[in-house]
């Protein structure tokens, strides 16, 4: 009875094999261009050219790894060289003291870097913008100063020379081309990881968290967790490259291994190429590094400072003229050209997987809030509010502006911790209280925001996918779910439009769609009809009814009285943080306290109530 109607049996679309991706023009064009990084120096045979290309591969790799945190997660680390340094020192010290091959040592360094990344990331991710950057600089400085201080271990400022054992086992060669092969391999590894993240749930989640942390939490995403994943991967990759580079230069000193200016350069290459894009960091490096290296080669010491001056100036100019970087500005156009090449046909859409079945008995308690008190300084926004939600009902919450309705929502969706009182989600006879907003979402409490929170730079479909990922980790099925939901709420005509370009009515529906895509048991709707036209309101009322008929229990805050009265099975009225009346719609509208709250005492008296 309460189970949702099962979707039509999905048509079996054969899953494309990994190798078939090679026939996609974007993949083969990228691989062809990448191979130039090996072919050009192989043809030239000049040691200097090989050195330049090793440098390009190393910095492109570092920048690509940085971009996972700085671009995808939007956490502007300016201390990333700490992982490079940790990798280099760990590998070199393991060779020196234990005689361990760098091929193994580099993984030890990566593991250590990952641990350090968690220890730094966990407390620092709450810092906003520039303060996160400052904290990462401070950590980098601390590590550099410690590396100088403990000179017994690291060789201090005087530096450390890598034991020169030649051969593949020791990653030190007379033929410089071998270095290029390893550097290229590491770059390829970093690019593949970066590409895979971009095209997986993690990539979408990182974008969501970067754009709007609250909306991401409401979609069941734990911001700290996804950022930690990003920083761990980024740190490990940076560390691997650092280990290799130490073998290449065979000399380590704290000033270069933990350098602030190199950290800035690495971030800069990403910005020039395009922050948060897969190809951007590589492109930025390829453009800038050769200029700097050639200038250094031609002008020698007389050009002291020239390349830094050029870097800094380019950086300022890019922020002023092309803040999206090269890929962000021209990427879409170039992408379309490439897609015209053979193999670029769009892939068939997958069928949406069946909806999750909602069980349970109608009328049983689903959510129970007891004596919720929420104080903000001297203001008590909710004062001893208790409520029970029954399975299958539509519960309306009304009250004048500032009555505390949204504060109540924030508490029963985990966005605010009540000052006192308790909330329990009852599922299968067990009562639980999730600790965070994202845990509430995963427990089946979906919410919309009164002030819409779209992910502006994502398309409508991608916005809905962020919600769909909660129960469909796979990108193709999340997309299929999102397509279905977009048709359900009437957004199919703007599917591929970026959310920031939508009018308010569509944005309100997008809020509902993103929440619906999480397939909640309980749907909290915060003024979804505000700003909607008359017809849109009717569509929305019908939609909410259909959602309820599919087995979802709904709580709606609404100012549109006509709509909420006709929709609700039961109404709770809140005024000045207190529940002043509850019951069926007809009795509530006649309640004297409700009339007083809305229209004043005089009006109530005049009506003779």
């Amino acid at each position, binding site marked *: 009875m309460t189970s949702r109607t099962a979707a039509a049996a999905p048509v079996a679309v054969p899953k494309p094999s990994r190798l078939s991706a090679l026939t996609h023009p974007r993949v083969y064009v990228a691989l062809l261009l990448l191979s130039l990084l090996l072919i050009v120096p192989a043809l030239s045979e000049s040691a200097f050219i090989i050195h330049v290309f090793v440098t390009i591969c190393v910095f492109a790799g570092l920048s690509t790894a940085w971009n996972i945190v700085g671009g995808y997660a939007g956490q502007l680390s300016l201390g990333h060289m700490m992982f490079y340094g940790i990798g280099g020192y760990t590998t070199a010290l393991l060779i020196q003291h234990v005689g361990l091959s760098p091929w193994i040592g580099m993984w030890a360094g990566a593991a250590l870097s990952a641990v350090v990344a968690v220890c730094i990331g966990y407390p*620092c991710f709450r*810092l906003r*913008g520039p303060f996160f950057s*400052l904290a990462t600089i401070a*950590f980098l400085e601390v590590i550099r*100063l410690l590396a100088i201080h403990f000179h017994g271990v690291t060789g201090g400022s005087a530096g450390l020379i890598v034991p020169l054992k030649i051969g593949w086992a020791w990653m030190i060669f007379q033929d410089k081309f071998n270095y290029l092969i390893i550097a290229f391999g590491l770059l390829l590894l970093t690019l593949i990881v970066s590409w895979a993240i971009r095209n997986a749930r993690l990539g979408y989640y990182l974008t969501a968290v970067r754009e709007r942390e609250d909306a991401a939490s409401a979609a069941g995403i734990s911001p700290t967790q996804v950022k930690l994943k990003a920083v761990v991967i980024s740190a490990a990759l940076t560390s691997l490259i650092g280990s290799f580079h130490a073998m290449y230069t065979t000399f380590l000193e704290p000033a270069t291994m933990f350098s602030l200016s190199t950290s800035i350069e690495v971030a800069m290459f990403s*910005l020039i190429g395009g922050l948060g894009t897969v190809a951007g960091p590589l492109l930025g490096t390829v453009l800038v590094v050769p200029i700097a290296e050639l200038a250094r080669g031609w002008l020698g010491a007389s050009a002291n400072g020239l390349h830094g001056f050029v870097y*800094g100036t380019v950086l300022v100019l890019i922020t*002023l003229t092309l803040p999206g970087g090269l890929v962000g500005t021209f990427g879409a156009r170039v992408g379309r050209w490439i897609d015209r090449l053979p193999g670029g046909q769009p892939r068939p859409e997958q069928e949406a997987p069946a909806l999750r079945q909602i069980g349970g008995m109608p009328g049983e308690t689903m959510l129970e809030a007891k004596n919720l008190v929420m104080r903000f300084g001297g203001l008590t926004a909710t004062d001893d509010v208790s409520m029970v939600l029954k399975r299958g009902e539509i519960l309306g919450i009304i009250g004048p502006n500032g009555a505390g309705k949204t504060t109540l929502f924030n508490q029963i969706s985990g966005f605010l911790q009540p000052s006192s009182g308790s909330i329990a989600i009852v599922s299968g006879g067990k009562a639980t209280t999730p600790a965070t907003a994202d845990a509430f979402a995963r427990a089946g409490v979906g919410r919309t925001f009164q002030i819409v929170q779209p992910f502006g730079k994502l398309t409508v479909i991608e916005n809905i996918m962020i919600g769909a990922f909660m129960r469909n980790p796979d990108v193709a099925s999340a997309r299929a779910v999102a397509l279905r939901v977009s048709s359900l709420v009437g957004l199919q005509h703007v599917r591929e439009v970026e959310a920031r370009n939508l009018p308010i009515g569509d944005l309100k529906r997008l809020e509902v769609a993103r929440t619906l895509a999480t397939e909640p048991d309980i749907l909290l709707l915060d003024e979804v009809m505000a700003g909607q036209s008359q017809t849109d309101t009717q569509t929305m009322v019908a939609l909410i009814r259909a959602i309820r008929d599919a087995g979802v229990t709904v709580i709606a805050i609404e100012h549109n009285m006509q709509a909420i009265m006709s929709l609700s099975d039961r109404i709770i009225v809140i005024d000045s943080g207190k529940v002043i009346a509850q019951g069926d719609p007809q009795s509530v509208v006649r309640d004297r306290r409700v009339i007083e709250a809305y229209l004043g005492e005089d009006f109530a008296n005049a009506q003779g109530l």
Partner: protein
Amino acid sequence: MDVLVQLLLNGIMLGSMYAIISVGLTLIFGIVRVVNFAHGEFLMIGMYATYLLATKLGWHPYVSAVPVVVLLFCVGALVQRFIIQPLLNADEHIQIFATVGLSTALVNLALMIFGADLYSVSTPSARQSVSLGGYTVLSGQLVILACALALVAGLHLFMQKTPLGRAIRATAQNRNAALLMGVRVDRIYIISFGLGAACVGLASALVMPLFPVTPTIGSYFVLTAFVVVVLGGMRSMYGAFAGAMIIGIVDSLSGYYIAPDLKEVVYFAIFILILIFKPTGLFGFGRGTE
């Protein structure tokens, strides 16, 4: 005991130098809401200007303070007008990159012009030992302390008593509301950024007799200045002053009792702890002046 008092005194002297460098940074952050990563390079520009005036014209650094303050005001105003202002509504990371890029460009420009050598101005009058009840400080340090106090007092009066100061405070508190009240917010920002830079111009002339200038002198001081500003609650001039004193004393004590090369580790550790556990600053001024 004697050592401790001398160390505390040294700390206060050092603190007053950090204070005079940090006041401008606080001003810019508090009003324009931009973290100026190039602040240290403003100091460097001021110090090179003081150096040039001293060597080419034979001016005493304290005399040079006047033209250097004017010069830095102009530099700050130009930076605001042509770099920060177009980016005011841009993403935060773009603003960070812009000032970081400016900082990189200026350091390397100095490297191209002056090379990596140390330049100092010989000013015996600022390096005289002054005895205070058996403890010694340098006369130049006392001048810095006096100027730091005067600067904070002067800025306080300016902010509280003048119409321009009131407009600046209004803009700092609510940019849109100020705009609606007819305040020319763009102009206020240019003036404020210029003022912040001018403060560091004063600092550079006063610091010159005590420290040699190099292209990287800015990054040496600016990281400390950021520590001070965060400690003081980011937007409060008085908080920054108190924070500077604390860092000065921590610097002086940890350099003696722990290890000279670890004193920065100590105050960076304090910095990180404050950022994480008390982001409104030690005294909670951060929120009060919001």
